C-alpha cells in the first residue's frame, strides 16, 4: 500500500528526515513513534502529498506521489495535528465542503455526512459553527473530514493532541473502529496511544527509522532485557490471612522475620545467572502481611523467567504469578531515542 525508498527532506542544509525506507501493507495500522521534532509530521505530510521530499520515491497504492498527486490525494485522508476546520462554517457545511472538494458528488456527500457524523459522534453539533466547538469536537470533526471520502489510507498526526483523558479514550475507540476498513498511519509521542491502537510501530529518531516491529518484537529483540513481575508467596506464608513472623506492623520480632524473608528472596533471585535487577515494591513487609505475597520486578539480559521460577521453588517459595513487566514499550522507546537508562 505504502512504499518509501530512501526518502529525505531537507530545509536548507538542515536534514529534517531520512533517509527512510519502509513498506506498509494494506490493512495495517502503523504507529510512528518519536519525540517532538524527530520528523514524524514531516514524514506524514509527505505521505499526504502536502510536502515534496528532497530525494527518494514514495508510492501509495502503486502511484508515485509526485507523478500522480491528485490520484494519490483521492486515496488519502489526512488529519494534521491542527484540524483544518473553517471556523465560520457549520460542521455540516464544512463536511459537505470537505467531501465535495475531494471529488464526491452532491448525492454521495449527502449520504456520507450522516455516516461520518455518527461514526465520529458529532451529529449533535451538525448545525454549530466550528469556531464554537471544544477541542475534542474539533478533533473529531477533523477525523470526520479525513474519512468523508472513504479513503484507502488514513493519516492521523497526533490525533489525541490536546485532548482530555476521556476524549483520548473516545479517540482510541474511533481509531480501533476504523482499523477494519482502512490502512491507518498514526503519529504520536504518547506511548500508550500507539501501543493500544497499532499493529506495528516505527520508531523515529533524528529523522530516521531506528526500529520497527510489533511491540513484543521491539521488546524482545531490541531491548535485550526481558522485564517480568514475579509474584511470590514466601516460604512459611499461608495466604492473605497469614503472616511471615507475625504482623509486620507489630514491630519487634515480626518485622525482623519479615525483613529476613525479603532479603532471602532477593538473594535467591539475584543468584540466578542473567538477572540484572530486582526491584521490590514499596513497604514489602506490609505487602506480605496483607496479601501474603510479594510482586517483584525482575530484569534480565535474556529470558530469565524459567530459571528464576525454578530457583524460587527450589528455595521453598511458591510462585503464584508471572507477567511481562508493564511499560515495556517505554523502556524500548527511551532506549532507542534517548539512550537513557531504562
Amino acid at each position, binding site marked *: 500500500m505504502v512504499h518509501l525508498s530512501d526518502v529525505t527532506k531537507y530545509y536548507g542544509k538542515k536534514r529534517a528526515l531520512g533517509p527512510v525506507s519502509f513498506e506498509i501493507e494494506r490493512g495495517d495500522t502503523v504507529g510512528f513513534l518519536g519525540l517532538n521534532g524527530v520528523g514524524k509530521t514531516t514524514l506524514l505530510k509527505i505521505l*499526504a*502529498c*502536502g*510536502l*515534496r521530499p528532497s530525494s527518494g520515491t514514495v508510492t501509495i497504492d502503486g502511484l508515485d506521489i509526485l507523478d500522480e*498527486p*491528485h*490520484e494519490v*490525494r*483521492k486515496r*488519502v485522508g*489526512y488529519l*494534521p495535528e*491542527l*484540524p*483544518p*476546520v*473553517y*471556523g*465560520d*462554517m457549520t460542521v455540516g*457545511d464544512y463536511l459537505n*465542503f*470537505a467531501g*465535495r*472538494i*475531494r*471529488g464526491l458528488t452532491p448525492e454521495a456527500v449527502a449520504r456520507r455526512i450522516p455516516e461520518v457524523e455518527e461514526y465520529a459522534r458529532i451529529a449533535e453539533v451538525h448545525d454549530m459553527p466550528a469556531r464554537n466547538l471544544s477541542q475534542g469536537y474539533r478533533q473529531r470533526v477533523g477525523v470526520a*473530514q479525513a474519512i468523508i471520502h472513504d479513503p484507502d489510507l488514513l493519516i492521523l498526526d497526533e490525533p489525541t493532541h490536546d485532548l482530555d483523558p476521556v476524549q483520548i479514550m473516545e479517540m482510541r475507540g474511533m481509531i480501533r473502529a476504523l482499523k477494519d476498513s482502512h490502512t491507518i498511519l498514526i503519529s504520536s509521542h504518547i506511548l500508550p496511544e500507539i501501543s493500544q491502537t497499532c499493529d506495528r510501530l516505527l520508531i523515529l529518531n533524528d529523522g530516521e527509522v531506528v526500529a520497527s516491529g510489533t511491540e513484543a518484537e521491539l521488546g524482545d529483540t531490541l531491548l535485550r532485557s526481558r522485564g517480568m513481575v514475579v509474584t511470590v508467596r514466601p516460604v512459611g506464608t499461608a495466604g492473605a490471612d497469614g503472616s511471615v513472623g507475625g504482623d509486620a506492623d507489630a514491630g519487634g520480632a515480626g518485622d525482623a522475620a519479615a525483613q529476613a524473608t525479603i532479603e532471602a528472596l532477593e538473594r535467591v533471585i539475584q543468584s540466578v545467572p542473567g538477572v540484572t535487577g530486582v526491584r521490590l515494591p514499596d513497604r514489602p513487609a506490609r505487602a506480605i502481611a496483607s496479601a501474603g505475597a510479594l510482586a517483584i520486578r525482575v530484569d534480565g539480559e535474556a529470558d530469565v523467567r524459567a530459571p528464576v521460577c525454578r530457583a524460587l521453588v527450589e528455595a521453598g517459595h511458591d510462585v503464584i504469578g508471572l507477567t511481562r513487566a508493564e511499560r515495556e514499550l517505554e523502556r524500548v522507546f527511551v532506549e532507542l531515542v534517548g539512550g537513557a537508562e531504562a
Partner: protein
Amino acid sequence: MGATGIIFRREFGAYVRSPMGYIVAAVVLLLDGILFYALALGPRTGELLSGEVLMRFFYYASGLTAIAAVALSIRLIAEERAAGTQLLLNTSPVRDWEIVLGKFLSALAFLSAITVATLYMPLMILVNGKIAFGHIVVGYLGLTFLGAAVLSIGLFATALTRHQLVAAASASVITGTLFLLWPLSQMVGPPLSRVFAALAIHGRHWAGFQQGLFHLRDIVYYVALTYFFLYAATKVMEAKRWE
C-alpha cells in the same frame, strides 16, 4: 459544479458570514454616499452638468473600489495559511488554478455586490438630470474591470505570505505603483511616458469608462492585467503547495 465552483461558494459564504465583509461594504457605501452628496447634492451642484457629476462619481468610486478590492483579497490565502486550513486544500485533488479562480470569483462577486449597491446614486442623476443610461452601464463595467484587476493583485500578494498585513502592504505597493504611473507619465518624456501611460491602471485606460466610452484596448488591458496576476498567484501557489 467543479472545484472552482465549490471553492467559490465557500469563499463567498465566508464574506457573508464574517464581519469583515460587512465592514468593507459599509465603509465603501458610506464614503460613496458622502462623496455623492458633496458632488451631486451639495451647494455647488448647479455649476456642474449631470454628466460631469456622473464622471466625478465614477472617479471617486474607482478609488474606493480599488481600496475595497485590496481589503477583500488579502485574507483569501494568507488567512488559510495562518489557520492551517490550507492543508485541506493542498491535500485534496484540486488544482492550484481552480483554487485561485474560485477565490478570485468569490471576491469579485462580493465586490460587485457592493458596487451594485451604489447604483441608486447614478439612477438619481438619470432621473433628475440628462445622462445616457449607457454611460452608467459602461462606468460600472469599468469599475468591475478595475476591481477585478486590483483583486488579482491582492490575490497574488496574499499567495506570497501567511500574514494579512504583509499581503495588504504588498498589494498596496503594487496597486499604488500602477496608479502612480499615470501622473509619472505626464512628467517624463517619450518613450518612457508612453510606456508608463500604457501600464497605468488609472488614467488613460480608466478615462474612457469614466466618460461612458467603450474602448477595446482598455478592456484588453484590464483583462491582461488580471490574467497576469492570477497566473502569478497560481504559480506562487504551485511553488508553495509542496512546502
